[in-house]
């Protein structure tokens, strides 16, 4: 019998450290205070879907804006493990903040360019003074070909269009992958040099933007292999950490639905005593428990970053498992809440919309399974 080509590496610590527990408690306290379901519902249809006050407390006061940024650039110097804990809490509150777009995606891309002038933007980003966005569609996945939709000329002027970018609305700077005169390159572009349009997004708590660049001046951050590597690392980090956001979301759906089924009465009984419903929740619990192991494994692999292929594998496994689990949790929340779950007034729909959008974000489950096929030597059928 042959065995897998790739030997089993040590599994990272899948539990939470005391520091991580403390960080979780601090984030949770802020969210409980400023980001309850009523507050989120009240904001989603306003012109300012993000709460700048909330982001000031989380990003600047708690230091989450620069969580992944090393201390030498003014950040917290934390690892993906801590960022994952933050995302669990943000996901559990469907918090409208630019953490994923700015503190994870843009910061990770900038960190890959740290030799080429990025520290200045990183410092302002880490201090919470500005936010930045990585100008790729939210559907971009690790392993994708380098984007060709934006072209840069020899003078560093960028022209092209990027759709469905997260956390670009309100950002001061854009990190733009572009086809430069010498191949792939990453540029920093001031957000006001781009035309931004906001389409109506499925996920009400994470608005999208379509960017149009027409000769916008850019500052070269990285070129060639360095640009490729920086973008790939950002997408891997984003996809791996997104699993923790999805985990937090799924846990909220499980907890909220379990609580509801304990107090809702029909037929003279608590509906949570009906076996068909209990079994559905037991299965969901098992999915959430499993999702936690997968998400922690991805966070641990990203934090250690020992073997790039192992990181890619852990991220692909997490995305392939946790994405559908989160969607399932949100769908069960809507169904098991019955009529109230279909209303605008109840927050379940916010979680369903986030879960469904997250499933497409940074690679669909099918896309991640395809990546795995190569990583674990289970090739597709020929022809």
């Amino acid at each position: 019998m042959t065995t897998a080509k790739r030997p089993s590496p040590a599994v990272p610590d899948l539990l939470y450290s005391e520091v991580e527990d403390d960080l979780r408690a601090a984030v949770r306290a802020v969210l409980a205070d400023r980001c309850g379901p009523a507050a989120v519902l009240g904001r989603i249809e306003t012109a300012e879907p993000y709460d700048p006050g909330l982001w000031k407390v989380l990003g600047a006061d708690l230091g989450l804006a620069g969580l992944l940024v090393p201390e030498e650039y003014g950040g917290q110097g934390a690892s993906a493990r801590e960022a994952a804990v933050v995302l669990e809490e943000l996901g559990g509150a469907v918090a409208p903040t630019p953490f994923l777009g700015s503190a994870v995606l843009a910061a990770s891309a900038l960190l890959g360019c740290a030799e080429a002038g990025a520290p200045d933007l990183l410092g302002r980003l880490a201090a919470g003074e500005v936010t930045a966005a990585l100008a790729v569609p939210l559907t971009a996945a690790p392993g994708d070909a380098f984007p060709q939709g934006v072209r840069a000329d020899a003078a560093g002027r960028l022209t092209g269009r990027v759709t469905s970018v997260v956390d670009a609305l309100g950002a001061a700077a854009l990190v733009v992958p572009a086809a430069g005169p010498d191949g792939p390159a990453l540029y920093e572009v001031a957000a006001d040099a781009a035309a931004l349009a906001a389409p109506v997004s499925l996920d009400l708590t994470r608005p999208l933007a379509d960017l149009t660049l027409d000769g916008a001046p850019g500052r070269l951050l990285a070129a060639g292999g360095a640009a490729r590597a920086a973008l790939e690392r950002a997408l891997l980090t984003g996809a791996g950490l997104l699993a923790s956001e999805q985990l937090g979301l799924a846990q909220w759906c499980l907890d909220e639905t379990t609580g509801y089924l304990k107090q809702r009465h029909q037929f003279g009984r608590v509906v949570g005593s009906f076996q068909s419903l209990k079994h559905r929740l037991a299965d969901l619990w098992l999915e959430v428990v499993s999702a936690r192991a997968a998400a922690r494994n991805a966070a641990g692999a990203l934090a250690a970053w020992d073997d790039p292929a192992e990181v890619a594998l852990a991220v692909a496994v997490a995305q392939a498992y946790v994405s559908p689990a989160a969607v399932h949790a949100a769908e069960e929340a809507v169904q098991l809440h019955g009529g109230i779950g279909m209303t605008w007034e109840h927050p379940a729909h916010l979680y369903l919309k986030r879960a469904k959008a997250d499933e497409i974000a940074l690679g669909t489950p099918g896309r991640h399974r395809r990546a795995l096929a190569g990583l674990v030597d289970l090739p597709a059928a020929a022809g």
Partner: protein
Amino acid sequence: MAGTGSANGTGGMPGAGGTGSTGGAGGVGAAEVRERARALLAACPPRTTGRRDFLRARFDAGLAWVHFPAGLGGLDAPRALQAVADAELAAAGAPDNDPRRIGIGLGMAAPTILAYGTPEQRARFLRPLWTGEEVWCQLFSEPGAGSDLAGLRTRAVRDGGDWVVDGQKVWTSSAHTARWAILIARTDPDVPKHRGITYFVCDMTDPGVEVRPLRQITGEAEFNEVFLTGVRIPDAHRLGAVGDGWRVAQATLMNERVAIGGGSAVPRESGMVGPVAATWRERPELRTPELHDRLLRLWVDAEVARLTAERVRQQMAVGTPGPEGSGLKLSMARLNQQLSGLEVELLGEQGLRYGDWTMVRPGSVDFYGRDAGYRYLRAKGNSIEGGTSEILRNIVAERVLGLPAEPRTDKDVPWKDLPR
């Protein structure tokens, strides 16, 4: 208290000499365990000592299960130190007690005897149980009492100093090799079912015990039916109080699921995903796009189940076990069934064939020395044995999520009045 004298039959072992005098000292550390193992090896070199004599001496040296009390094969030491003793003895080529052959005794009978047995019972049963000189089996399930085990109808009636037992038990592994059985039987039909049960040790050589192989879906017979007709059990072989058998049985069943412990993470592609992945790699002509997607989905599920088990192991290692363990069996049952089903389908024409339907009596279950058809059929039992998946979901819903039990009509009615 624990009958140190009578268990230490081998007398002059250097290790055993100190055992009695430690008197429950909680401070036994790795160094002392290692030292005792070396003393045992010096006194009974494995090369020149018979297997049975060595195992007896090991028991008497307190190195059988170090967390058991001194005098009963242990040292009152932390359970984790067992690995120290095992490693030291294995490195010297010492024989082990073939734990797969005596799993019921080690995993279920022993902890129950320790918890509920009298000093005489512990002294009589534990040593030959551990050395494997006496094999144990479990007489719990009945044709009419599976998930609802407390509804069992095997009767035990007091007759002087004995109990007389009549009834039928089923799904008993090792019954045909066992010397003893742990048995639960109804001693009072006039009280509600959980309260009228008593727990016994049954002598499998009693003339009233008849063991018949139970042929199963795979063609072979791992298990037995056991018919009990006028079996006489002395009252001295009762474990726990009359009528308290359900509580005693809970201790047994609890131990059935404790198995995950120390060690390190199992390797990737362990278990049923291994043979499917190997077939996929070796037989490109079998691949189709549809099977590819199903294989990748199950590969992900298997990897995540491995990580979930590892997370449970990490929790136990730091002393904070979470409820996650309750879900592992559910995951494994589903995975084993789906992976083996996929494997049969992937094999195509070869999947139409089966290794051997001959009725045999395997010593233990071996999923991997057999073909895919066997795995597919045997895995069907994974969601039935040791708690059906349906009962396990109830347990998760009620004990982990705190959802209410369904209304019960059988809890307060005398057993004899239950509808059947």
